[in-house]
């Protein structure tokens, strides 16, 4: 039978409508032998790029279009009608541009998340488009209601705009009771207006049996429960019917089905995937971007003070000619301008990733890593064999990221730049939650089922219920649960909503808006309807702008240095060989330093003993899964320390591997090893490196490598050994350029910690960049002898600031606690404190309450945390006033009256040490005055606790007891299904890692999850790079042990016996300091 082409098809990119992906659609069309297929998602082209790619793979011609929501805004127009939909298909480039503009307008002109267009807008953008007005269009609906005259009036403007050639009336035979009548009415409308009709089927699922998925999606979209009145469809005919089935439906009028082929013939637009669309860069008259880039690079050579020798000339020439050949000059120039703009805004920026391997990036100021001096590979960043487009990643201060976005979008114009979208897809848990809601199931029960994922599937539900005890208690019938999971499994992977990608910005030419629609993100940025993979497919270059808290922390430190000392430190110009900085690093005193603060890293630093900046590059690269797994660290360390001689399997490897004593540490070394032995170009060697994870390509690579290298005189065994080493390293490692780019802020932060520790701590506390909670940073500051100054209404600032503290001989710098972390305080309240204080200092609590808009609970919190103690050391009294002062209004004036001070002369008891710390924890979330563990010192001594600082020197396999405050706990999903809890305890000498395996969890889980300060007995294990971890065998709540000790039965408590009146309620959290107040113990 003759073919047929579907022209009304909504995929899952209609967001909670179609029940299939573009890939599944393309596959289905190919299987049915269809020559072409359209995808017409609602108000969006989110799926367009991957639809085209899938069609190309399946050998089906894609037709690009969309279903637009139509609403009449004109008075006297269609205003009385409900929203309708019209299908638009692109015939050519101009048509697709019009489609993109219409969709952009639909999203940008009205409210966010309520896209619609006026019918007249569509008519104004008709060029290059085919319009299909079906039964869900305004004219179609009027016709089906028998109002043919009205319908014809509505359709007339479309015929004017699109012409008889490109306007069609879509007729459907949905096998509903009214279908035959509707079909006749639609045909009458077409005849009346004088346009052709085309047979369509509203495809929302690929198979009739999948209609249930569409029902649930519809109810999820409209936020209504699944019920007959909430489901639009009347039967399951909205599926992807074959040509035979479609033609059978329209057997009386084969011309209607034929018309679908004519429409397909008209729609010949090709999105042109794979062609790169370079950004525009306005250059002076008659000059090419290449010429401008060359000039800028030479200027950079002088600005960077580099020696203009042959090596530099060769390298620069090599890079520039590659850039010219691949057409990237405008991209480099654009990014260089962005980076310069960011820096001129006073924002710290750093280039990360392989782009740092480019000398051009260094010379144009994009990166601050000298690729020539470090001998970094340009090919790792950019070469003609790379399938993916090279992109440049820029780190900026996290606190200023939005400012940077606004600057880039503003400067590069609405037409040429946009933020990349991120398509948030349903994962098992989110799918179960939303499906459960649509199915009208209780949230709590659905939540339990959701949490059991990924351990259950609909097919194996029965077994899962038997296996997972938490499911046994779920109050859902088996069938309900099966339905819930069955639907959720089908929805998994479908788009859920479209959000802003956390860092990507597309830099394009003016045609961006003609190939991608735009909409606004939740916080008002212009965002393209394409995610990062689509951007790649569409051939746009992007710039990733990542917000990095460490950069904000360092900025804050620099600002504080300038404010307190007047010194203007230029971090980009500090010497990279500062002895004291390396002493800090070698002592692994690197908490708060970028990339080298984790326990494992600190252990590695101790062994590696870096004494130059390049060692940091190696250190960062070694601390990766690849080198760790393939055990490259031990030989590297042995050879570096001279315990072992460097081994080069082949003399040709001396060059590439000398800097790391014959061990492969960097991607670049893989490339150069292959190039040196087999004589490959670096371009081809990088191609091999990129595909080392491809089992299908590996044998070919291996054979070729062995043949070529032996032909060049390499011993076959050596060649095999080298190939083995290279494949072991595979894609795990790090690229040296990236490590070098990281090593810059690493060194800078270590330098600040060495020379301006208080200032760096202020930055770290303000921006909280690292892996550790703020209270651990405070503890580190304390250990460096930096006074932590209390919260003070007259001295604290919004951020953590540095203050000079007078001491006996030399003044020292202390860090003042900040308002920003006071529990419950708002920005407006902080502003009001600051502006009132600018007039004059606060005299007392009443004065504070009178002159600020700070709420009573926050005022109480401030008093509780001692923020008024500097005025008078009477904390309970301040708290009493804050709690009881009665506001009274006199006119507009808010006054506070206290009955002639009823507490006059009353002497309140001082806060005990324990109360002080408890208040700090409650209000600021950190123990500022002293470490909590200090209250437990006698207990820890009795228990024989091994402290964190001594653990590293303890033998693996020893039985130890460790203790501390729980600062982190993680329960990652492990492939084996085993649940492992990872804990980090802080015992005032450092962090202690604890692992709790499933076998002991029944016994200890409650204490682990609910306890605040814990003691753990277990076996010490050495992990990874010299890290240590205690495998828990027994866990106690420190507060419970503390109480037992006080009552004289600690020994029994440790053995697991419990006593006392309220045995069950070993109190949790810092509360213990209140009840069991150990006073000034310690």
């Amino acid at each position: 039978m003759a073919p047929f082409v579907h022209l009304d098809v909504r995929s899952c990119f209609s967001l909670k409508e179609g029940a299939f992906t573009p890939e599944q659609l393309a596959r289905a069309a190919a299987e049915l032998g269809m020559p072409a297929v359209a995808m017409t998602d609602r108000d969006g082209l989110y799926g367009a790029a991957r639809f085209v790619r899938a069609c190309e793979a399946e050998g089906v011609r894609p037709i690009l279009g969309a279903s637009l929501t139509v609403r009449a805004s004109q008075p006297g127009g269609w205003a009385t009608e409900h929203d309708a939909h019209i299908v638009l298909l692109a015939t050519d480039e101009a048509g697709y541009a019009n489609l993109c503009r219409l969709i952009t307008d639909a999203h940008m002109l009205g409210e966010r998340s309520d896209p619609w267009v006026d019918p007249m807008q569509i008519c104004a953008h008709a060029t290059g488009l085919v319009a299909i007005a079906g039964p869900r269009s305004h004219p179609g609906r009027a016709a089906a209601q028998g109002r043919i005259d009205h319908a014809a009036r509505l359709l007339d403007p479309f015929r004017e705009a699109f012409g008889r050639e490109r306007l069609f009336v879509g007729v459907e035979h949905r096998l509903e009771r009214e279908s035959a009548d509707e079909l006749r009415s639609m045909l009458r409308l077409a005849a009346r207006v004088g346009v052709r009709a085309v047979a369509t089927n509203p495809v929302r699922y690929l198979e009739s049996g999948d209609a249930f998925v569409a029902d649930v999606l519809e109810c999820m979209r409209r936020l209504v429960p699944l019920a007959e009145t909430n489901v639009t469809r009347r039967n399951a005919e909205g599926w992807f019917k074959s040509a035979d089935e479609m033609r059978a439906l329209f057997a009386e009028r084969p011309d209607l089905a034929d018309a679908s082929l004519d429409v397909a013939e008209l729609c010949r637009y090709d999105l042109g995937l794979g062609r790169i669309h370079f950004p525009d860069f306005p250059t002076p008259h008659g000059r090419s971007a290449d010429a401008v880039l060359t000039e800028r690079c030479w200027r950079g050579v002088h600005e960077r003070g580099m020696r203009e020798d042959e090596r530099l000339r060769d390298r620069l020439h090599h890079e520039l000619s590659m850039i010219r050949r691949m057409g990237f000059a405008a991209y480099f120039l654009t990014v260089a301008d962005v980076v310069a703009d960011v820096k001129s805004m006073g924002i710290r920026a750093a280039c990360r990733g392989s782009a740092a391997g480019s000398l051009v990036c260094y010379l144009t100021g994009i990166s601050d890593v000298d690729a020539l001096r470090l001998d970094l590979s340009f090919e790792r960043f950019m070469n003609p064999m790379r399938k993916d487009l090279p992109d440049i990643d820029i780190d900026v201060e996290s606190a200023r990221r939005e400012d940077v976005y606004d600057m880039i979008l503003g400067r590069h114009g609405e037409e040429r730049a946009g933020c990349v979208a991120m398509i948030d897809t349903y994962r098992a848990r989110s799918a179960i939650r939303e499906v459960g809601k649509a199915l009208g199931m209780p949230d709590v029960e659905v939540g339990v089922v959701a949490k059991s994922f990924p351990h259950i599937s609909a097919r194996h539900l029965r077994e899962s219920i038997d296996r997972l005890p938490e499911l046994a208690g779920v109050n859902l019938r088996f069938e309900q649960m099966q339905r819930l999971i069955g639907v959720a499994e089908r929805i998994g992977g479908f788009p859920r909503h479209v959000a802003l990608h956390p860092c990507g910005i597309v830099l394009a030419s003016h045609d961006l808006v003609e190939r991608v629609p735009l909409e606004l993100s939740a916080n008002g940025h212009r965002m393209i309807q394409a995610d990062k993979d689509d951007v790649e497919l569409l051939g746009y270059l992007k710039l990733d702008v990542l917000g990095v808290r460490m950069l904000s922390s360092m900025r804050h430190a620099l600002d504080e240095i300038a404010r307190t000392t007047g010194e203007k430190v230029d971090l980009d110009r500090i010497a990279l060989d500062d002895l004291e900085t390396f002493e800090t690093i070698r002592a692994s005193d690197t908490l708060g330093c970028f990339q080298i603060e984790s326990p494992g890293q600190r252990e590695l630093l101790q062994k590696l003993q870096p004494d130059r900046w390049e060692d940091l590059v190696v250190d960062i690269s070694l601390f990766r899964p690849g080198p760790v797994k393939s055990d490259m660290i031990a030989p590297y360390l042995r050879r570096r320390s001279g315990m072992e001689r460097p081994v080069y399997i082949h003399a040709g490897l001396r060059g590439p591997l000398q800097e790391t004593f014959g061990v492969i540490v960097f991607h670049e070394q893989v490339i150069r090893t292959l190039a040196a032995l087999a004589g490959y170009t670096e371009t081809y060697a990088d191609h091999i490196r990129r595909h080392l994870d491809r089992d299908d390509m590996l044998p070919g690579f291996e054979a070729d490598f062995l043949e070529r290298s032996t032909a060049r005189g390499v011993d076959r065994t050596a060649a095999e050994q080298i190939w083995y080493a290279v494949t072991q390293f595979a894609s795990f490692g790090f690229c040296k350029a990236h490590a070098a780019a990281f090593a810059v802020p690493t060194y800078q932060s270590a330098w600040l910690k060495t020379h301006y520790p208080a200032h760096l701590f202020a930055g770290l506390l303000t921006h909280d960049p690292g892996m550790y909670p703020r209270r651990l940073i405070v503890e580190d500051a304390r250990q460096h002898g930096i006074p932590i100054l209390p919260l003070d209404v007259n001295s604290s600032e919004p951020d953590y600031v540095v203050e000079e503290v007078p001491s006996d001989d030399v003044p020292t710098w202390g860090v003042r606690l900040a308002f920003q972390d006071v529990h419950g305080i708002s920005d407006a309240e902080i502003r009001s404190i600051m502006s009132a204080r600018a007039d004059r200092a606060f005299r007392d609590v009443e004065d504070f309450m009178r002159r600020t808009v700070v709420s009573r609970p926050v005022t109480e919190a401030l008093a509780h945390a001692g923020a008024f103690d500097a005025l008078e050391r009477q904390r309970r009294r301040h708290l009493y006033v804050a709690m009881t002062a009665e506001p009274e209004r006199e006119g507009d004036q808010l006054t506070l009256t206290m009955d002639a001070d009823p507490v006059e002369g009353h002497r309140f008891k001082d806060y005990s040490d324990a109360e002080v710390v408890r208040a700090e924890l409650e209000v600021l979330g950190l123990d500022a005055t002293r470490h909590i563990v200090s209250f437990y010192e006698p207990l820890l001594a009795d228990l024989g606790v091994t402290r964190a600082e001594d653990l590293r020197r303890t033998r693996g396999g020893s039985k130890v007891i460790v203790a501390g405050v729980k600062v982190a706990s993680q329960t990652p999903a492990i492939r084996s299904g085993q649940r492992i809890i990872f804990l980090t305890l802080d015992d005032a000498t450092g962090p202690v890692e604890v692992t709790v395996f499933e076998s002991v969890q029944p016994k200890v889980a409650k204490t682990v999850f609910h306890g605040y300060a814990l003691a753990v007995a277990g076996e010490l294990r050495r992990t990874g790079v010299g890290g240590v971890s205690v495998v828990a065998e027994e866990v106690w709540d420190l507060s419970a042990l503390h109480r037992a000790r006080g009552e004289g039965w600690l020994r029994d408590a440790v053995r697991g016996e419990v006593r006392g009146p309220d045995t069950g309620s070993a109190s949790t959290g810092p509360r213990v300091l209140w009840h069991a107040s150990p006073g000034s113990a310690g």
Partner: protein
Amino acid sequence: MTKRFDEEIRVERDTGMPSAFEWRGRRYEVADVIGRWKIEGRWWSDGRDREYWRVEARGGAVWDLYFDRGKDRWHMERLWD
């Protein structure tokens, strides 16, 4: 005059379409198929899935018959005479 029923019947089919049916012991031959539609949905409750045929029997009366696909049974739902 239309009358509603919902009685099980026996149907003979020819190339998928009903060609004759038996109701209350009498056999009716189908002269013409006037319409056909499907009702399916409510999978979350009764799982209704019916294929309707509106036929004119010899003699001029119009009948709505449906095939219940879930139960694999024919019913007569409506009669115009």
